[in-house]
């Protein structure tokens, strides 16, 4: 199997369409015959990352590389950046506004979920420039 790359533009600010890229990835992986646990892990990582870009960064680009041994999700935005990544990683820490929280988001569990469900996660962020989050989910 050759590696497959899926790329999505995630629109900012509109939470009604958030999750569509994740759904497409899920459907693709299912058609390719991946096990349900791997699909779930990729889905959670991707959805949380998508939501973050919609809420905090006015959207961005999501790239999913499906390889033989692992699936790599790269989420790149040109948003405000994360001033303190360690703080942002803490469960329950959030900077989301009331409107977002009223919809059930902004619990401060996005990044912790991404960390939990991926095998490797790396965040590169520069304030005023943007953030790139890379997650690797290994295929058992």
């Amino acid at each position, binding site marked *: 199997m050759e590696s497959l790359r899926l790329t999505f533009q995630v629109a900012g600010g509109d*939470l*009604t369409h*958030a*999750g*569509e890229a*994740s*759904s497409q990835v*899920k459907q693709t992986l299912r058609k390719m015959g991946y096990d*349900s646990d791997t699909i*779930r892990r990729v*889905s*959670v990582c991707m*959805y*949380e990352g998508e939501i973050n870009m919609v809420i905090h960064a006015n959207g961005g680009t999501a790239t999913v590389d499906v390889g033989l041994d692992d699936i790599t999700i790269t989420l790149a935005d040109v948003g405000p950046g994360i001033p303190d990544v360690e703080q942002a990683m803490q469960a329950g820490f959030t900077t989301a506004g009331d409107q977002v929280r009223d*919809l*059930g*988001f902004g*619990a*401060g*569990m*996005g990044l*912790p*979920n991404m960390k*939990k*469900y991926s095998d490797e996660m790396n965040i590169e962020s520069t304030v005023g420039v943007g953030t790139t989050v890379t997650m690797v989910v290994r295929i058992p």
Partner: protein
Amino acid sequence: MTVQELVSQLELTVFHLEDGGRAVTGGGYCGDLLSWVMGKAPADGVWMTIMSNVNVAAVAALTDLACVILTESVAPDDPLLRKAELQGINLLGSSLSTYECAVKLSAALGG
């Protein structure tokens, strides 16, 4: 137990029933914060919530839930209902509180 059997036993309102024959094997999860649900809800389980916006469908689909029960007589907003139809989500309702609904679900699933 199937979703259809659950509808009968718990006297649930049907907002959209795509696959009544789907088996409920994952137990249940109660919660309204979507990231908690994403992280914790069991696949093939039942999610009980008072959230009724369109993002409920995305979470239900991505976590492979057997069905969602909107508790406390909450009704889905139009975008959620449309999305449930589009994505084939079993979307149900109950007049019970989330706690009471979970107790009944537990009994129905055999404790």
